[in-house]
């Protein structure tokens, strides 16, 4: 298991492995939205919490599209399925590796991008906290979506389609927590719900994902 984690992290760090690219996408989105919406600080401050959360979500989404696909294509997944570790464990480890290489950097970068989007001062703490609680759920849910679409050529976009609806609760509670924080309102309730989603999906979805993988392999 540890071997799998270190391998995935190593693959991510090697040339072309994708480490930091989710981050780059997040950055680029934060640049594009003002370019599209216009430079007015007031408008940007209003939409900043929502856009930052949508950006984090999309960055996760894009980087997970090949979580299993690469292993499927080169046959590793067949071999992992016959290896003496449970497929549920494989899924959980892969989701963890994905979070470490994508979610965590997003959490750390978010405050900087908040500046670009003119996020109001009190919201920064809530932003980091909500992302920290919410991004693991994005990785786990994404692992489930990736497992569902693993055998398909160009499964990436189909996966987006399947996963995005599943991301909705996370997005709503996360963005709500930040925007309440930005207005100085109490934000504990959405944060608690967010933590609940993360705990629940981390506990249950690996089983569903492993089942989907087994079906896709045969």
């Amino acid at each position, binding site marked *: 298991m540890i071997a799998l984690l270190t*391998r995935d992290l190593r*693959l991510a760090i*090697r040339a072309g492995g994708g480490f930091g690219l989710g981050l780059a996408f997040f950055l680029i989105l934060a640049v594009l939205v003002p370019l599209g919406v216009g430079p007015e600080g007031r408008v940007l401050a209003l939409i900043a919490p929502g856009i930052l959360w949508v950006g984090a979500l999309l960055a996760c989404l894009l980087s997970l599209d090949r979580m299993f696909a690469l292993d499927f*294509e*080169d*046959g*590793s997944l*067949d071999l992992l399925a*016959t*290896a003496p570790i449970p497929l549920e464990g494989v899924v959980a480890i892969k989701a963890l590796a994905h979070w470490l290489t994508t979610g965590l950097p997003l959490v750390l970068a978010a405050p900087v991008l908040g500046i670009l989007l003119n996020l109001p001062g009190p919201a920064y703490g809530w932003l980091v906290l909500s992302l920290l609680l919410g991004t693991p759920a994005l990785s786990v849910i994404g692992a489930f979506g990736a497992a569902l679409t693993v055998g398909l050529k160009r499964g990436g976009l189909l996966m987006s389609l399947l996963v995005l609806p599943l991301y909705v609760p996370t997005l709503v509670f996360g963005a709500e927590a930040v925007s309440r924080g930005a207005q100085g309102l109490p934000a504990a309730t959405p944060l608690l719900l967010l933590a609940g989603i993360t705990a629940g999906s981390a506990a249950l979805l690996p089983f569903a994902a492993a089942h989907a993988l087994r079906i896709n392999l045969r």
Partner: protein
Amino acid sequence: MELVVSDLACARGGIPLLEGVSLRLDAGAALVLRGPNGCGKTTLLRTLAGLQPALGGTISCPPDAMAYAGHADGLKAVLSVAENLHFWAAIHGQTGVPEAIAAMNLTDLADRQAQHLSAGQKRRLGLARLMVTGRWLWVLDEPTVSLDAASVALFGSVVRAHLAGGGAALMATHIDLGLNEAQLLDLTPYRARAHAPDGFDEAFL
């Protein structure tokens, strides 16, 4: 330690391919599957390895006994030869990577990334992986594709050593592996016959 398959039927894409396949493989024995292209060798091996369900019949084999090597080698292009093997060894809780590297004549290439190997070198690495699984039964699908004569001989000796150590091997191939002691099983007679669909329920499944 034995694999016993009786009256196995298997299908691909919903179409039955083979039926009535029975075979038995004891420690120290090797069995080579033969049959024309598309007769279902790959399908049979994947079924035995547990990667797809059987249509009927039984497979009895101790758990975690099989190491499967299919058409794809399961190598990571950006990891080196040694790193690839170390990973699979760790997954299977084994050691013995240097021995595997030496046995498949990969010593000079140990630090080369897998993407920079030639077709035959990749295949040798894929076969070296078997040696770090610690598994008793090797299930191999066309193992010597792309190998030159010397490497085929090397592979033969590795398989022989595995058999001598109490292992077993089940291989599908079209070319001669140089393993004269292996039994042969031609799959042509086991081709599934089309059953007349009798009744809706039958024809529906």
